[in-house]
């Protein structure tokens, strides 16, 4: 099976800024691929390289086995859902959705039918005559999605599409995107800075920082076996500690210990509680264990120690992930 997208040593430099620097990865056909990273990490530039808005300074990009360098966006069967939707303000919803078919010369009756179908797919049937400006954020999001999907793209690119939505709507759209992706069997490439979103939605996640890809893998691999201090900390925050301190690996190596893997245990090592914050489902404790600061997430209960008190903590050595000396 040909990969949907492959990057081979791809760089995109803007003057002296290396927005994307010698990046290699493959996106498989039909997968939900998330590109995760802080702002300025190069994830959006990678997306724009796939869309064709940017051209690589070096390296090769293939989309379904065909070289994509030098090919303009309008010659690629790839569509984008933009961060702020970029709906055309002078067209109604139906005209927006039908735009891609109109420029390809599809007849009016056929493109109206296809637009209505795409609107029904995103549960906006009957909204065709409305102005884009008269819709709510969530509805605009769906129109943008329908406008891209109506073209039946080989790859759908989503640039932080849920960033502008409130929490409830966001969770609803996450599920819906997942449902659509499964139903249509399309390759989705999703850019986000929200690690929870990336982990919960994607088949595989690529973590970016400083223009370089740090790690790529399934959400579980990324979370359980982060390859570096950055990934450990960015994806779900972690205690990065010397490996021998955590009771695993060799001296000089570093290890990642997830806060939720630390438990209060009467037989454990003695630590001082520095801070305590109630988060509803969990309580976050800031601890000091022999000079090493640790964060722990524990279940709320009546017997939690107060800040300043001493307590005993423990963790399973199996939960400690050793990252090596260079991490």
């Amino acid at each position, binding site marked *: 099976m040909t990969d949907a997208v492959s990057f081979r040593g791809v760089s995109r430099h803007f003057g002296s800024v290396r927005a994307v620097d010698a990046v290699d990865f493959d996106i498989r056909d039909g997968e939900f691929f998330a590109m995760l990273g802080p702002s300025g990490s190069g994830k959006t530039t990678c997306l724009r390289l796939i*869309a064709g*808005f940017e051209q690589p300074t070096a390296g090769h990009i293939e989309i379904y086995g065909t070289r994509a360098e030098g090919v303009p966006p309008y010659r690629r069967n790839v*569509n*984008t859902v933009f961060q702020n939707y*970029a709906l*055309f303000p002078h067209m109604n919803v139906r005209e927006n959705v039908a735009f891609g078919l109109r*420029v390809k010369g599809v007849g009016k009756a056929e493109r109206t039918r296809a637009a209505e179908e795409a609107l029904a797919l995103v549960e906006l049937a009957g909204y065709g005559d409305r102005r884009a400006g008269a819709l709510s954020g969530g509805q605009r999001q769906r129109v943008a999605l329908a406008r891209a999907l109506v*073209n039946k793209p080989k790859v759908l690119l989503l640039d932080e599409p849920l960033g502008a939505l409130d929490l409830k709507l966001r969770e609803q759209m996450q599920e819906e995107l997942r449902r659509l992706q499964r139903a249509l069997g399309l390759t989705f490439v999703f850019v986000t800075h929200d690690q929870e979103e990336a982990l919960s939605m994607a088949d595989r996640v690529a973590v970016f920082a400083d223009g370089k890809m740090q790690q790529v893998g399934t959400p579980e691999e990324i979370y359980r076996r982060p390859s570096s201090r950055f990934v450990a900390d960015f994806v779900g925050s972690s205690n990065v500690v010397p490996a021998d301190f955590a009771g695993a690996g060799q001296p000089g190596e570093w290890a990642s210990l997830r806060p939720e893997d630390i438990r209060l245990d009467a037989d454990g090592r003695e630590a001082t509680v520095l801070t305590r914050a109630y988060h509803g489902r969990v309580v976050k404790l800031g601890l000091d264990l022999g000079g090493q600061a640790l964060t722990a997430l524990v279940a709320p209960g009546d017997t939690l120690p107060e800040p300043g008190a001493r307590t005993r903590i423990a963790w399973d050595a199996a939960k400690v992930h050793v990252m090596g000396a260079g991490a």
Partner: protein
Amino acid sequence: MTSPAIFAPRSGVLARAADWAIRHPRMFVFLMVLPIVLWLGIVYIGALIALLMQSFFSIDEFSGVVQHEFTLKTYAELLRPSNFAIIARTVAMAAAVTLASAVLAFPMAYFAARYARGKWKALFYIGVMLPLWSSYLVKVYAWKLVLAKEGILTWIFAQLHLSWLLDAVLAIPVVGGNSLSVSYLGTFIVFVYIWLPYMIIPVQAALERVPAPLLEAASDLGATPKQSFRMVLLPLALPGIVAGSIFTFSLTLGDYIIPQIVGSGRLFIGQAVYTQQGTAGNIPLAAAFTVVPIVIMGVYLWGARKMGAFDAL
């Protein structure tokens, strides 16, 4: 010492007036628009109505005295071939000037809106506005010298061994002539030069408001650059082009100096008004001539609105 939760009322006339205005926002807005309403409503619109009324009077052909009786005789006179030719000539010139201004202004405005930043943007504004700071008459006379038979343009064409081209252009019937400075083509060039800034600025402002991702979205959805221009950029820039064309069109319709200095000597509407109300003393006919551009602009704006030129506003 404790500070109060609510401060004591302020003293002083201005301070109290400002506080009053904040408490009465509707009155404040009313007071702000009052002077302009008085000016527009009474001085400007009033004068226009007086003018309109004049056009329904007529002049006694023997005594030359204005007869203050309602008649459409003056408008009938407007449609006489010699007068109608003036109107047709002016409208054709205004349309040509507007079209040329739009075509020339668009790339400049596009560059300024999309690519120019910082210093380049300042340079753009200065470059566009600078000609407006110098006297209109000086510019028109300068153009007369540039376009004259002995002028710099003829010389440049000769130096480039392109005199034949200039001669060929001048040999075109109607628009050509003895030299550029005594031809319609010359009038057209000067009109475009003088009114171009009034087209560039609104088009640039309209293009500035078009978000860049919209063009990326069009391209992403498969639109070629030509399609993006026609289906996204142009419709969104149209309000600016219409705004600019209102300037170039109406200013050309009303101008009476440029065709007098650079041109074939045949009259334009502005010159007709000037001679009718001056030397000829035919105020009703001058008024009727003045009504023509107003009606044309009214029809133009109505048509532009019908075509959806203001939908993107």
